[in-house]
């Protein structure tokens, strides 16, 4: 089973990299970009075949290592 984890900064946490990308888009002539938020995607290949067990295990991985809960949120997508 494949797990795809999206890690994003929480709302309200300043994202200077997103701001810099927004600025760069503007200077390339792409108008109308009101905000840019930059995050990361992490993909895992799991041996687990049970969806619920996989979700619970990946959730724990996110809380312990893959995301920093002080500043980041995460969502988990599973594909069998």
């Amino acid at each position, binding site marked *: 089973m494949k797990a795809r984890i999206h890690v994003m900064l929480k709302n309200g*946490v*300043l994202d*200077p*990299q997103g701001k810099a990308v927004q600025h760069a888009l503007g200077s390339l002539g792409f108008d109308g970009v009101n905000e840019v938020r930059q995050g990361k995607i992490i993909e895992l290949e799991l041996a687990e075949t049970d969806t619920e067990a996989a979700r619970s295990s990946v959730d724990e991985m996110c809380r*312990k*290592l*893959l995301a*920093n809960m*002080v*500043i980041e949120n995460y969502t988990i997508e599973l594909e069998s």
Partner: protein
Amino acid sequence: MKTAVIVFPASNCDRDAQVALRNTFGSEPIMVWHGDATMPAVDLIVIPGGFSYGDYLRSGAMAANSPIMREVVTQANRGVRVLGICNGFQILSEAGLLPGVLMRNANLKFICRDVWLRVERNDTAFTALYTQNSAIRIPIANHDGNYFADDDTLAGLNQDNLVAFRYCDEGGNVTDGANPNGSLENIAGIYNKNLNVLGMMPHPERLMEAELGGTDGRPMFQGLVEVLAA
């Protein structure tokens, strides 16, 4: 008195910390490899600066989960003094010994220069030889030094007087202009609740000798010698 320096892959201030400890404590610190699961009981542990694990995932995130950190947490919970400098601060916060997180500098630049720090309190083992509210000059050298915590955590730090240092001007005034990296409330270093763990982005171990540009870092180590010997 026994001291230790934890060495991770891509630590680069471990030797500076080693020299600082050797010259102030008068004995050789134990250099402990990150992959070791145990270490002897010591009086002071230094987590040095650098780019442990290449800053993969987040600064300090991988190092915080290396085998030796379980032992560091155990000793810290027993009251052993722990000093995390720069990457060491990032590692301590990722390991949960200190609250909050060090984010990318607000201007997205690596900043390497001297800054002024206001000593918020001088009744801890780390600051006993400094004057309260005095300004000391210490260098920073980081890309991820922008301290952030949620509102409750920040309120707790202020209420419990756990901010160790704030970026200030030469006269000790904490101003927006003196904030190099966007840190909340100019925070440059914080203590844990028991005041035995200090994390700070600036590098006191780099200003130990006049020949190296200044001695404002020396009272931290000298103070630890005196407090730990008492």
